[in-house]
């Protein structure tokens, strides 16, 4: 992929103006995958995928997002209007906003499933968030989205153009844990992967303690991170916190995506009693905080993470 093409694409995304966008390349312009081809000793094969997160379909709060019934659809229009199609799209959880009524919860998931049929890329990976799965250990999610899941679990792996992806479920346990069963599964999966192979983890909650007071953590996330540490090239993409955040645990890089429903405040210093209240809609700046990001790395040199303003479609 030539540099000019990348910039053309980025400029186009600026116009599209919505969603979390991640570029990936074996030529080293993306930090998560920097040097993939070299490390794996194979010919590079560029690709990019989109990460959308926390769409909370069914949320109703005019002060927070008066466009809640349109935001996901606008995002899909933006994705569909991209000049270059992504290889696949991943939704990192909280596809729907929860409710105690199982029938309504199911209906929201079914509506979401219908809406994303409008995407012109149908290679779609789904992860649950706590709003989708915590009230019933993922039962309805697995039923409604079974055609998107490779097996009968909400955690899975896939390989795309030589890159290993692992989707972890840290929400079906209402206490926000991955759990012993999944950790045992993860060990087996990791054993199949070379230590120098590029590895991308997809989760909903952060795997590190970003802010425990706000439930921005995974109860047994450290066990997962410890399992990943022997791997040289690991990047985690997650959602949950409704904003961009970049963090490193050792050499492992963690990137959170913005939400497509409302932004949350940045994590205040540990122990603060500040509330985690959604940031209210700004009439003067609609969709503020719901922007997209492009990430690129110039070959082995500069890592660039740039935020683009949201433009109301």
């Amino acid at each position, binding site marked *: 992929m030539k540099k000019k093409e990348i910039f053309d694409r980025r400029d186009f995304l600026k116009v599209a103006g919505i969603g979390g966008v991640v570029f990936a390349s074996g030529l080293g312009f993306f930090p998560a995958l920097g040097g993939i081809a070299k490390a794996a000793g194979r010919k590079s094969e560029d690709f990019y995928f989109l990460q959308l997160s926390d769409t909370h379909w069914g949320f109703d709060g005019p002060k927070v997002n008066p466009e809640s019934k349109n935001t996901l659809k606008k995002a899909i229009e933006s994705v569909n209007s991209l000049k270059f199609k992504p290889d696949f799209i991943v939704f990192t959880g909280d596809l729907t906003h929860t409710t105690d009524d199982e029938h309504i919860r199911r209906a929201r998931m079914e509506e979401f499933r219908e809406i994303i049929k409008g995407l012109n890329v149908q290679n779609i990976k789904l992860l649950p968030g*706590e*709003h989708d799965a915590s009230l019933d250990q993922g039962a309805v999610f697995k039923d409604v989205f079974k055609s998107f899941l490779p097996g009968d679990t909400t955690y899975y792996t896939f390989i795309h153009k030589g890159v290993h992806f692992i989707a972890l479920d840290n929400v079906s346990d209402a206490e926000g844990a991955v759990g012993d069963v999944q950790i045992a599964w993860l060990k087996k999966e990791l054993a199949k992967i070379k230590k120098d192979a590029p590895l991308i983890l997809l989760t909903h909650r952060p795997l590190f303690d970003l802010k425990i007071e706000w439930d921005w953590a995974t109860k047994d996330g450290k066990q997962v991170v410890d399992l990943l540490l022997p791997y040289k090239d690991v990047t985690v993409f997650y959602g949950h916190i409704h904003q961009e955040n970049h963090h490193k645990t050792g050499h492992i890089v963690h990137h959170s995506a913005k939400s497509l429903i409302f932004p949350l405040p940045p994590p205040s210093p540990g122990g603060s009693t500040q509330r985690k209240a959604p940031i209210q809609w700004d009439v003067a700046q609609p969709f503020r905080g719901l922007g997209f990001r492009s990430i690129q790395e110039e070959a082995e040199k500069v890592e660039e993470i740039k935020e683009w303003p949201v433009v109301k479609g």
Partner: protein
Amino acid sequence: MKRLDKHKTVLFLVMLFLVSLQLGKAKSEETERIISITAKKFEYNPSILELKLGEPVVIELKSLDRKHGFKVPALGLETVVKGGETTRVRIVPDKVGEFPFHCSVFCGSGHEDMVGKIVVKK
């Protein structure tokens, strides 16, 4: 034979010591201040707990509806209570300040609002 008697005596004294420790602990917990909190979607009542530095307190948490959590990260406290049940957690505050707590079991739309704080004063 004498050696065996000596071992028995030591064993007896150890058991006596352990029993007295347990009795002492139970006695002290009986005399400690108990703060009762109810938990239900999506609130604690009361949501602000005032404690004194160094004063042992037993927090008695009762859930009125479903499973909830009670987590105070800054004080290293965490417990979970099932619907209709009561659980106790003991705390001896060793620092002054305000320490937020929250429900650590996702309990529905509004879970994020299920918070409170412990205020420890001198």
